[in-house]
């Protein structure tokens, strides 16, 4: 069943895609003929189809607002769990950017397992340790990966130096 929340999100998503397509087509307009031919052959029909989709989504949003019996609460609960997972993912990225893979992987895995799966700390540490061991065995020793330099690199450098 389509809810008002879902229908509004659908219309908003279509609008974002429409704007992105419009920007791409506008940029391509001034390119040399050979470079812009294929982008315009694909981009213009995609733009038109996306506009039709947006029109459809907008009308279904209005209809859903009239008909929805109010199951938004359940949807919002799932959405809030998904949003929390997104926070973890973005947090993991920020950790990699700040202190590097080698440091952030065990911290991320341990904290995630303990807080989300509600396991005990020893189990969390075991997961974090095993994941880090797998990462180092495969990527550091086997594939000889050149790790990205984080903003604060001293701890990662110390660990890699020790290894």
């Amino acid at each position, binding site marked *: 069943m389509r809810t008002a929340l879902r229908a509004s999100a659908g219309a908003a998503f279509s609008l974002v895609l429409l704007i992105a397509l419009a920007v791409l087509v506008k940029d391509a307009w001034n390119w040399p003929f050979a470079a812009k031919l294929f*982008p315009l052959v694909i981009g213009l029909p995609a733009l038109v189809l996306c506009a039709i989709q947006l029109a459809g989504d907008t009308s279904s949003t209005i209809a859903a607002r009239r008909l929805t019996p109010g199951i938004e609460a359940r949807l919002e609960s799932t959405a809030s769990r998904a949003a929390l997972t997104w926070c973890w993912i973005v947090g993991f990225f920020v950790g990699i950017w700040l202190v590097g893979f080698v440091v952030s992987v065990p911290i991320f895995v341990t904290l995630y397992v303990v807080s989300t799966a509600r396991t005990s700390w020893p189990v969390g540490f075991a997961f974090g340790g095993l994941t880090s061991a797998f990462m180092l065995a495969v990527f550091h020793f086997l594939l000889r*990966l*050149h790790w*990205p330099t984080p903003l604060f690199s001293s701890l990662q450098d110390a660990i890699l130096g020790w290894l």
Partner: protein
Amino acid sequence: MLESAYSAFGMLFGCPCALNLIPFRLIYLVGGVLMGLTFGLIPGLTGMIGLALLLPFTFYMDAPAAFALMMGLLSITATSDTIPAVLFGVPGSGAAQATILDGHVMAKRGEAGRAFGAAFTASMIGGVFGGVILGLSVPILRPLVLAFGSPEIFMLGLLGIAMVGVLSGNAPLKGLVSGGIGLLIGMIGMDPQTGHLRWVYGETYLYDGVSLILIALGLFAIPELIGIAAKGTRIADQVPVSGGGTLDGVRDALRNWFLILRCSALGIWVGVIPGISSSVASWIGYGHAMQTERGARESFGKGDVRGVIAPESANNATEGGDLIPTLAFGVPGSASMAMLLGAFLIYGMKPGPEMITVHLDMTFLLMWSIILANILGTALCLLLSKQMVRLTRVRSELLVAPILVVVFLAAFEANREIADLIALLVLAALGWGMKQLDWPRAPLLLGVVLSSVIENYMFISVRAMGADFLTRPIVMTIAALIVGTLAYGFFVPRNRGIRAAEDTA
């Protein structure tokens, strides 16, 4: 032709001609099978996600080993997904949905072992049949493929996008826009024809375009992981006793060999059509058995073993069918085949005529991989099904973090820049939005993979013939097929069962 088939078999086993019998490529195949079995067992983790995770690491291997590994994984997920479907009524992937109807009833009756025996045997015969048909189709397709020039291949690329866009999911308009966006993303970077930089906005990172690995991981892997984390439950709290009778199930399957062959043929046919997933094949197999088997209308849904055999043979056979248009025409029928096509391009192999001439041995290697993976996977399932059940009891939250780490590392492998991770997050947001709002993601991936191929063939066609290439008979035939596909998608109401299957696939 036979020499190529034999040579491909030798490639898989090392090189028997030189008496070097160390089957190192076979070890990769076995590794792929084990990964495929694991991914099939856990709902939400499909073979395609496994392929997306594997792809960056295959660059270090020689091509036959890499493709043996990937085919081992892809061929077998439709076998192990039966285990949670039969025991708990939860399909490991969309392809096992139809199996639930009778398989789960059998498990409740204490006949899980019999259901497993029948399902695994049917899966193996279906998968092997699909691989054999792939090999047999080469001499039939050869003259047809070699008759195709640049204009025809250009039009086939468009047909592939149109079919996948219109037929995958249940919103043809969204599918077409998704395919269009994929084609545009595939054009980011330096235009190979003119050297013009397209949509790079001063970022040197974008000069070489957006990596296929990032697109696959962002569009599919992260959204699925978020879905698993949001559900936050294990598959089942209590594992029912699986019961004996596995050999009875094997006998049931062998007794119904003709049903298996018919459903396998249907599965191959479904696989050949771009845009229709293996979940649809299993429903078609189930429906066919219900209509043609004696007494099936009364007994199906009440624990009839034929209701397990039919869908299982159909969904395993699709892999061989899927590969036929992918290899012969460079038109992949599904997201996983689009990724496999991308892998071919990365290894410098261009699907199309080259795959049945220059790289014929690679085509046969894929055939052998499907056949061996199905035999090996079935043997493992028959031997270890009771142990494998334990994997399905692992709490999903425990799996999410380690897999996320592998996703991030795989993404970083794309260009080894921190920008890879930013691109991953942007694409993940796009993929998650599409998943939540029922926008099909397969056409987008297919668009990215086919973008350079289609544009290249369009330019060759225009340069050689101008607009006259549009008047060639085969081009006009394919154009008519595109129009027919679009008309079908927009004006013909689709089967509810198929819709339901695709929604959850």
